[in-house]
């Protein structure tokens, strides 16, 4: 069994915090893992992505092949669409935030992005910033998105991801852990509803 995940966003949005929790949970569960990151010049407000591969078998390539990704997770709606050539036609999910990050003059109309997203059969689009604000933890938007991913990530149990959140945020104190868990659960509930 394998799960190939593309994490997408804009430099500075913090896609790696999601990868870190999934990675920690995967290691704990004894899965094989490879995670290709982008560093350097591309980070400065440009598009960024990370290829995260989980498998019960040894993994060869650090990169996911075209048409091979089981999930695209994106903190930004246009960035989710950037990687659709990598999405599996058979069973690929797009899990994306709906709040656009507009730092270019030719950013498309939101209606065009929404219409484009609607073309794909398995999409969960959530305004994770709004959900995070609603539960009074505005800085946990990434964990809301992770919760939504948990709804389709059958290789990892939700509880393993919760343990991952506890481990990763432990040094920041119990309050931060609890806030992030609440955000995770809110995202998970919302995604299950939308699925």
């Amino acid at each position: 069994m394998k799960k190939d995940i593309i994490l997408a966003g804009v430099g500075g949005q913090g896609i790696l915090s999601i990868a870190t929790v999934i990675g920690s949970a995967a290691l704990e569960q004894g899965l094989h893992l490879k995670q290709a990151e982008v560093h350097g010049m591309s980070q400065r407000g440009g598009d960024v992505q990370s290829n995260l591969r989980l498998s019960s078998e040894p993994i060869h390539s650090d990169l996911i092949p075209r048409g091979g990704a089981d999930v695209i997770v994106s903190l930004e709606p246009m960035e989710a669409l950037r990687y659709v050539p990598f999405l599996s036609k058979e069973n690929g999910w797009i899990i994306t935030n709906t709040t656009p990050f507009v730092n270019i003059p030719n950013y498309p109309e939101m209606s065009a992005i929404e219409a484009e997203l609607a073309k794909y059969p398995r999409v969960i689009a959530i305004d994770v910033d709004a959900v995070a604000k609603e539960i009074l933890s505005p800085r946990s938007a990434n964990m809301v998105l992770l919760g939504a991913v948990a709804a389709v990530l059958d290789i990892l149990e939700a509880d393993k991801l919760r343990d991952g959140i506890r481990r990763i945020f432990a040094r920041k104190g119990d309050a931060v852990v609890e806030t992030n868990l609440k955000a995770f659960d809110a995202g998970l509930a919302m995604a299950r509803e939308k699925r």
Partner: protein
Amino acid sequence: MAEKNLLLGDEALALGALHAGLSGVYAYPGTPSTEITEFIQAHPLAAERKVHNVWSSNEKTAMEGALGMSYAGKRALVCMKHVGMNVCADPLMGSAMTGANGGLVVAACDDPSMHSSQNEQDSRFWGTFGMMPVFEPSSQQETYTMARAAFEYSEKRGIPVIMRLTTRMAHSRAVVEPWKDIQEQNELHYPEHPRRWVTLPVNARVRNRELIKDYAQFEEDAAESAFNFLKDGPDHSMGIIACGISYNYLMENFPQGCPFPVLKVSQYPFPRKMAQELAGMVPKILVIEEGQPLVEERLRGVFPIGTEIIGRIDNTLPRDGELSPDAVRKALGLPALEAYPASEVVAPRPPALCIGCGHRDFYTALNNVLKKDYPTARVFSDIGCYTLGYMAPFNAIHTCVEMGASFTMAQGAAYSGTWPSVGVLGDSTFTHSGMTGLLDAVNGKADVVLCISDNLTTAMTGGQDSAGTGRIEAICEGLGVEKEHIRTIVPLPKNYPEMERVIREEIEYHGVSVIVCRRECLQTLRRHAKTAAK
């Protein structure tokens, strides 16, 4: 330390070096190599063992520092991006002539597809050029293991070893299981062959002949190396040579095992004997290598041979850019996976200077002066975040070539009649390779305005210490720039009138002017504020 570490390839190399008894890491930051040194700087074992880990001014000084450590019998690591190898080429080639005493490993991180670089040069060529062995790992675990093996091999054969990583190995994480034992550091001990270390012609001629012999031995060793192997397969219609990380892209396409005989190469000089054995089994060989077609070119030769060679040169694989599982899949003749076409809604989102960055204010003021009053002006820039001044809305620079070229090219253009001739570089690039060019300008009495956009850090690579912080003006004065023409300004919108006045005055002065434009990088400022809050 946990049994299992989730490490970048860079970090696996760093940990392997530390566990091999490293005494010093010498480096200048450069993507994708920076994390090797950063990992060592943050590691408790480095503090406990007093492993030297201060950033060097440039790759040349780094290589020389490491060579000195090797001379003294200790294990030293030098790290840089591929183009850094050009900067350290002199001591690198010299180190092949002196040989290594303590283990000396040169980590060169190549960036095919130029994610954050100006060219695609392949560091394996340095091995052939300097007659040095090259190690090229294919996984994070192998990177860790290979780091120790490289130090041991360096000492066994008395030669520096180049370890070549490419972006996807340097910046991809996987589980690494370290050894139980951690080696002790070497004691101080001096070379057995003291004559080699004085490369006067009388000694160098002798050493050169030895090195030529040794290089043949290195190839014998590569053929016996555990990092290289020839694995047979049932289908002898084709054979495959897969170098370094490209082995993974091959195996990705054959989850049940590769049907063709495969020669995996991770240690060079290229083991010709193994390739000959493969050629005896098959009529055709596909060469898969990340970077330039070094092995493929060598196998093809000039005259017809009995074996058909395919690879990058005949476009079976793309001639440039990094490899991918898809490119290799196509080369193997396998059908592509079913995939969606690219979305037409998506707009490019290129990297940009951060909102509020001092470089923005500097370019705004410079443009206000030049575009309005000096339409003949040319701006020679350099390598760093400020290269993004090329992009809209600034369109402020005309050149960017390599570290330090701004100050020197501005002089060449000025002598040729360009006026105003403006050079722009950052503080870290200035101390890396700009200072000597400034001395040239002073001696040549060049009519140039040389600007140092000082953000107090090496920003592009993530905010490492910059070698001249706090001493930029003093360095310029020491190099002979007249004090009244070393001007310091603070790049902020409210200061535009003053900034523009200073720029104008220095353009109108027909000699060497230096304008230091100083405000801290926003990224490091934020980080420092966080640290202070704790």
